[in-house]
């Protein structure tokens, strides 16, 4: 028996199940996504409009309880082109990962850009959201398939430089 190699490694699989609660504010956002709409929330103190809010204004620490419906269009503030496949990621590489500032919002979020060559993406590019089919809409960001150029002229750097 002792001729066998000494043990050097040990498998230790871990599997844990959770049930997450989105919370009040996030549920409002998710409800919007389920209906094919972006929801913003305005801070009562600083008046900034937050997308994908978890319920608080990150600078004031107070509930963002005023609901603001946001349009489908926005501006790419900055981006990168991803050339590396990630576990669990089914998007074909290369793809564009961009910070998108919806019109009327004061915070950008990361979104996928499609329907264009990756080497033509630029800061300030105007984009619009493409949603999944109505029967596929759900309370998740996956309801937004991706963003694509909407043909408008690029936004002036001055208009989004604070949101990089």
């Amino acid at each position, binding site marked *: 028996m002792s001729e066998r190699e*000494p043990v050097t490694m040990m498998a*230790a*699989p871990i599997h844990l199940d*959770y049930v*997450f*609660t989105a919370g009040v504010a996030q*549920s*409002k956002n998710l*409800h919007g996504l389920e209906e094919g709409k972006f929801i913003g929330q305005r801070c009562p103190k600083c008046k900034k409009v937050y997308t994908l809010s978890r319920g608080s204004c990150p600078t004031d620490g107070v509930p963002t309880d005023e609901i603001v419906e946001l349009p489908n269009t926005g501006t790419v503030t900055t981006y990168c082109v991803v050339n590396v496949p990630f576990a669990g990621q089914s998007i074909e590489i290369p793809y564009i990962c961009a910070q998108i500032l919806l019109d009327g919002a004061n915070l950008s979020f990361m979104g996928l850009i499609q329907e264009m060559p990756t080497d033509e993406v630029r800061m300030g590019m105007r984009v619009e959201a493409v949603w999944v089919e109505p029967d596929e809409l759900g309370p998740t960001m996956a309801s937004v398939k991706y963003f694509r150029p909407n043909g408008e002229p690029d936004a002036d750097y001055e208009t989004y430089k604070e949101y990089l």
Partner: protein
Amino acid sequence: MADQAEIYTADHVLEYPYLRSVGPVVGAFLTGLRDGKVLGTKGTGGRVIVPPTEYDPETGEETAGMVEVGPEGTVTTWTWVARPRPKHPLPEPFAWVLVRFDGADTSFLHVLKASGPEAVASGMRVRPEFRTEGERVGHVKDISHFVAAGGAP
């Protein structure tokens, strides 16, 4: 919007097949289990530490050498689990036991098969039931469980 008050929940799975390198001391113990033996190491003042670690559990000083202990041992404390949880080592009611192997100065946590709580007591003599040689891989579960050894404490 239909129902403003609806709160969404979502299932989430945190899962990963960790693969741990075990180093020389834990490795020696696991190798021993795979080969059907229980090993300890010598800590500060010659105390025999089972299961062995690279360090003395009190002083942190380096431990030295492997010594075989057991295979029989004595239960130092126990608890009867009438309703095992899904990840527990045994599906049927069992006892968790701390076992001090003969020749060891510390105790080892494992499970004991018994007919019921009345058949378990601190001080009882027990021995490990190893899995078959082919099933053993170098893991603490190479010991399937403990059973009463029958001898007097």
